[in-house]
């Protein structure tokens, strides 16, 4: 009885080992087969190698992960930096600004089920 148990244990561990090895080689093969781990353009040379390493390691670490750091609602920034231009001379923008943006609309159109126009609520 005890001998039988022992053999069973042995087969189980070996099976585990084999399946693990299989899974590992599967991951490695997938890396070779698909374009998933490779940069879209190979720039060649040392930079090309570094590109591939960066892309592959990022994909390996970050696939099936959240894309950005999650923040609490209370952490929404109070700073809204403006790059290059804070008051464009554009005619339409100036007209909307003069009307305190009441007429401003954000169109949600195209390949959507419910095309709508969003507007700012008066506060």
């Amino acid at each position, binding site marked *: 009885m005890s001998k039988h148990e022992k053999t069973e244990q042995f087969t189980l561990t070996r099976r585990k080992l084999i399946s693990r090895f299989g899974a590992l080689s599967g991951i490695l093969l997938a890396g070779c087969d698909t374009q998933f781990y490779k940069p879209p353009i190979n720039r060649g040379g040392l930079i090309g190698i570094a590109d591939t390493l960066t892309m592959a390691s990022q994909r390996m670490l970050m696939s099936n992960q959240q894309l950005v*750091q999650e923040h609490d609602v209370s952490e929404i920034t109070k700073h809204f930096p403006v790059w290059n231009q804070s008051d464009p001379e554009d005619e339409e923008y100036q007209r909307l600004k003069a009307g305190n943006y009441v007429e401003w609309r954000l169109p949600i159109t195209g390949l959507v089920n419910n095309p709508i126009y969003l507007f700012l609520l008066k506060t």
Partner: protein
Amino acid sequence: MLEPNKSWIHRHTANARICHWIMAVSVFYLLYSGIMIFLHFPELYWGKVGFQGYPAIFKLEDWGISWERAEELGDRRWGRNYHYTFAWVFVINGLIYLIWNSWQKSFYRKMLPTKQELSIAHLKSEVKRHAKFRAAKGSAAAKYNILQKLTYLFVMFVLFPFMIISGFAQMPAFTAISPELIDLFGGRQTARTLHVVCSLILVLFVVVHLLQMVVAGALNQLRGMIIGKYEIAQESNEVAQ
């Protein structure tokens, strides 16, 4: 006075020499490309928020280079490409060095400070010798002195890992999978600032490293690091022993 006797030793292993020069090249490119990236955004902030106009703790503008001028001087695209490339070279080369030298016992023999070396009296005499710019002679010149050992260990196991971690903390994608890392620094801007501060400490190390090389004999030191042969000038009293 007697002409000091000279003997030759094998100073650095082939692995140490090759890794040293690959590291020297990659550190040069990392610094150069790092400066190029920094110039494209020449301000440093503390905390989570940072943008042009936000209170900065360092502004290149205060040092006579305007934002526009710095942007012209810098090249973020070139800089990022080379920063990533040589970061890989640096990390792979560093790992080869560490694994090889951990396997070879020479690492412990050369780098690990002994109890006698860590005594206050010995430390004092070594600091004095360094302050007078006097090179070690005889058998003492054949091995690293205590300040050298401590500096190398500090650079390898404190500054280099810190550069890598604070570099990772600036990667938006990496902080997405490991927000703990960015919380550890208290924000990406802090990580960026500390990355720059640490790089300045490394520049200081390189300057002192080169100065020490000149003090100890530039030709001999360079030869030791290129072909491995190193000349030991023996003191006259040691010859008598």
